[in-house]
C-alpha cells in the first residue's frame, strides 16, 4: 500500500501549484470572474502551453495518457486557486466523451483542439426536468435525410457561454427516463437554431441554458452508436465526479487553512479566539471532514479510469456523497468561525465556501448519491 504520488505525479502537481500561486491571486480571480469571458484566457493559454490541458489524452494527441491520479493532481491545485477555467467541462467531460465514443476521424477532428486548449468544449447533459438524472432526456434528435434535427433544451451548461463546441445528449428513441435511446451529438454553438441564455453562477463562474430549435446536424456529428450513449455518459460523469472530488479537496484545504489562521489572529475578550474550546473543536471537525474527503477523493481517483463495475459505481457515489457533506460542513462552519468577515465579498473565504456548495450541485448532491449508493447496494 502506498498513498504517495510518484515522482512524475508530484512534479505535475507542483507545476500546477506554481502556476496557480503565480497567476491566480484572489484579486486577479475577482477580475477574471467579472470579465465577459468569466475566466482568464491568458491562464488557459498557460495551462495549454505547459501541456496540462492534454494530461488525460493519449500521446498521439500530445498528452501523456494520465489517469485518475494525474487528473486528481491537477484538479486539487486548480481547486486551491478557485480557478474558473473550464478544465472539467472541456478536458475531462467533453474530451472524455469524444475519446470514448468518437470514431477515429471524429477524434482527429475534435480532440487535438481540446487537448491543445485551442478549442474549448462544454457538455449539455442536463435538462430542466432531469435534476441530476442524466438518463432523463427529453431533447429529441430525429433522422432527417443524412443527418438529424434536434429540438429541446439543455440546462446549466457550465462554460457553454464561450464554448467552441458543445456535446449534447438527445433522445433518438424511447421515453424520457429510458437509458436506451440516448445519443450524443457535437454541435457548434453557431449552428442555426442554437440559442444560448448566458448567466453568471453563484460561485463566480459562467454558464448558459441552451435552446435547440430545429437544429440541423450532419450524421457525423453523432458520437458512437445511435441510442447507446447512456453507458458512455455514466462512465464519463464518473470520471468527472472523481475530478470534482479532487478539486473539492483543494478548496477545502485552503478553506481550513484560512479558518485556522483566523482563529490564531482574531482576538476577542483579550485572547485569540482559537483559545476557545468550542471553536477549537469545530476546527478539529473541519479537519476531520477534510481527511474523510481526501480519503474518498483518493479512492475515487483510483477507480476513475478503471473498467466500469458495480464497485466503481459504488465508490464514486460514496465519494460524491462524502465530498458534498464535507464541503457543506466546512463551508458553513468556516463562515461561522470567521463571523461577520466571512460574510463579505471582499474577503476570500466566502468564495471558497460558495465553490464548495456549488460542487455539491454538480453531477449530483449528497442526497442523490446516497440514494444511488443504497439502490446500487441493497435493491435486489
Amino acid at each position: 500500500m502506498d498513498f504517495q504520488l510518484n515522482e512524475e505525479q508530484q512534479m505535475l502537481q507542483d507545476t500546477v501549484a506554481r502556476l496557480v500561486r503565480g497567476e491566480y491571486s484572489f484579486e486577479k480571480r475577482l477580475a477574471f470572474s467579472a470579465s465577459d469571458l468569466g475566466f482568464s484566457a491568458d491562464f488557459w493559454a498557460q495551462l495549454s502551453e505547459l501541456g496540462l490541458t492534454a494530461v488525460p489524452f493519449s500521446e498521439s494527441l500530445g498528452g501523456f495518457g494520465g489517469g485518475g491520479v494525474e487528473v486528481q493532481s491537477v484538479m486539487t491545485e486548480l481547486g486551491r486557486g478557485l480557478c474558473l477555467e473550464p478544465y472539467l467541462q472541456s478536458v475531462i467531460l467533453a474530451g472524455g466523451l469524444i475519446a470514448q465514443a468518437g470514431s477515429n476521424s471524429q477524434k482527429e477532428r475534435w480532440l487535438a483542439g481540446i487537448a491543445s486548449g485551442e478549442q474549448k468544449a462544454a457538455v449539455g447533459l442536463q435538462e430542466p426536468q432531469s435534476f441530476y438524472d442524466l438518463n432523463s432526456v427529453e431533447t429529441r434528435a430525429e433522422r432527417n435525410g443524412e443527418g438529424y434535427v434536434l429540438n429541446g433544451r439543455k440546462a446549466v451548461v457550465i462554460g457553454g457561454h464561450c464554448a467552441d463546441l458543445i456535446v449534447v445528449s438527445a433522445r433518438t428513441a424511447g421515453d424520457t427516463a429510458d437509458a436506451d435511446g440516448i445519443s450524443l451529438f457535437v454541435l457548434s454553438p453557431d449552428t442555426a437554431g442554437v440559442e444560448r441564455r448566458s448567466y453568471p453562477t453563484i460561485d463566480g463562474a459562467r454558464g448558459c441554458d441552451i435552446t435547440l430549435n430545429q437544429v440541423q446536424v450532419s450524421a457525423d456529428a453523432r458520437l458512437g452508436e445511435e441510442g447507446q450513449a447512456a453507458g458512455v455518459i455514466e462512465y464519463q460523469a464518473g470520471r468527472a465526479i472523481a475530478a470534482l472530488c479532487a478539486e473539492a479537496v483543494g478548496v477545502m484545504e485552503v478553506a481550513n487553512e484560512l479558518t485556522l489562521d483566523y482563529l490564531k489572529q482574531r482576538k476577542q475578550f483579550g485572547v485569540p479566539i482559537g483559545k476557545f474550546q468550542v471553536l477549537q473543536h469545530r476546527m478539529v471537525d473541519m479537519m476531520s471532514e477534510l481527511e474523510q474527503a481526501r480519503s474518498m477523493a483518493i479512492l475515487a481517483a483510483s477507480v476513475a479510469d478503471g473498467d466500469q463495475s458495480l464497485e466503481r459505481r459504488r465508490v464514486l457515489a460514496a465519494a460524491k456523497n462524502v465530498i458534498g457533506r464535507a464541503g457543506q460542513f466546512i463551508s458553513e462552519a468556516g463562515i461561522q468561525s470567521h463571523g461577520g468577515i466571512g460574510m463579505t465579498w471582499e474577503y476570500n473565504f466566502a468564495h471558497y465556501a460558495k465553490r464548495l456548495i456549488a460542487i455539491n450541485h454538480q453531477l449530483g448532491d449528497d442526497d442523490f448519491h446516497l440514494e444511488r449508493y443504497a439502490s446500487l447496494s441493497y435493491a435486489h
Partner: protein
Amino acid sequence: MNLNYTPEELAFRDEVRAFLEASLPADIAARVKGYRRLTKADHQRWQRILSAQGWYASHWPKAYGGVEWTPVQKHIWDEESGRYGVPRSIPFGVNMVAPVIIRFGTEEQKRTYLPRILSGEDWWCQGYSEPGAGSDLASLKTRAVRDGDHYVVNGQKTWTTLGQHANWIFCLVRTNTEVKAQEGISFLLIDMATPGITVRPIITLDGEHEVNEVFFEDVRVPVDNLVGEEDKGWTYAKYLLTYERTGLAGIGLSKAALEHLKALASRRLRNGRPLLQDPTFSQRIAQVEIDLMAASISNLRIIASVEGGGMPGAESSMLKVRGTEIRQAITDLARRALGPYALPFVEEELNLEYDGEFLSDEHAAPLAAQYFNNRKLSIFGGSNEIQKNIVSKMILGL
C-alpha cells in the same frame, strides 16, 4: 499511489484466514458475532490457542516472544478478526502494561511478567481512573508512601474493566505531593491478592458487570514492583496511552457490525418488504456504510504512514472520534431495526445454548443493550472531547 496489498501481504492474509478457519472455536465465534456474553474461560481458551500459534503478542519484540507484525499485517489481522468473530483482545496485559515493562522495566521485571502474560497465567487490569480523576487523569489522589522495602498504598480506582477476573493491576499512584501534579506520579505493579484490596462491581446501564471499583487500604507493595523511576510515572502513562489509542477506531469491528446489521435488516420487514429496501432505512445504512468506507481509507493512510516504524500521532485521535461515532451509529441502527422488539429484554436468549423459540429474531436479544453498552466508546480511552483537545493542540497548534 497503490491501494492494493503486496503479494507478501496477501499471502499473510491467506495464512491468517487458514489459521482462523482451522483454530477459532465455533462456539466462541458464534458468541462474538451474536453479541452474546463471553466468559473468562472463553477468553482464556482463545488466548491459549493464539499463544500456541505465536501470534498473541503481535507487536512485542521477537526477543520477548512477540511477532513484530508490520502495521499492515496488524491491520489485516484486525480486519480478518472482525470477519471471523475473534473475541476482542483484552489489552491490559499484552498491549498496555507489557509495552511499558519492555520499554521502561528492569530485566527482572521483564523475566517475571512477560512470560506470564504470554502464557495467560496473569490477567492484568488497569488502575488509572479515580472517582475524582477521569479526563483530568493527572489529578489522581491514590497515595503510595515509602516504608522500608515497600510502598503503602491507600486510595480508590474506578472503571476497572474486567477487574473481577484479574490477578494483577498496574496503577498510577501519587508518590510526591510537593510538586506539579504530573511530576509526582509513579507506576506500580500490584498483586491483586495483597491484603487490603477490595473489588466491587459497577453494574452498567445494560445490566452487565464489566467494570469495577478497586479500593486500596494500607496495601503493602514491594519496592521492586515500581516500574522505572519514582515520580516519573506520567511519562510511562502517556507512552501507554498512545498504544491504547491505536486501534480504538475499531474499523474491523465496525465492518463486522455492519454486516451483522445488513443481515438483520434483510430479515426484518416494514411495509411488507425488508428494511434493507425501505427507502428511509436503507439510506441510513448507506450513510454509515459510506462513512465507514472513508474512515477505512483514512485508517489505511495512517497505517501506510507509520509502516516504516514509529507511532501514529494525533491523527489516530481524529480517527478514534470518527471510528467510535460510526460504531455507535451502527449499534443505533441495529436497535432501530427491531422496532417494538427492541423493548423486550429476554435474558435467556443471550445464551448461545438457548434452544427455545425466539421472541422475534434470533439475534435480537442483545441489540438494545449493546446500543447502550457502546455509549462507552466515545468516553473511554480518552473521551472524544479530549481527543479533539489533543488534535487541536498537536496538529492545529491552537
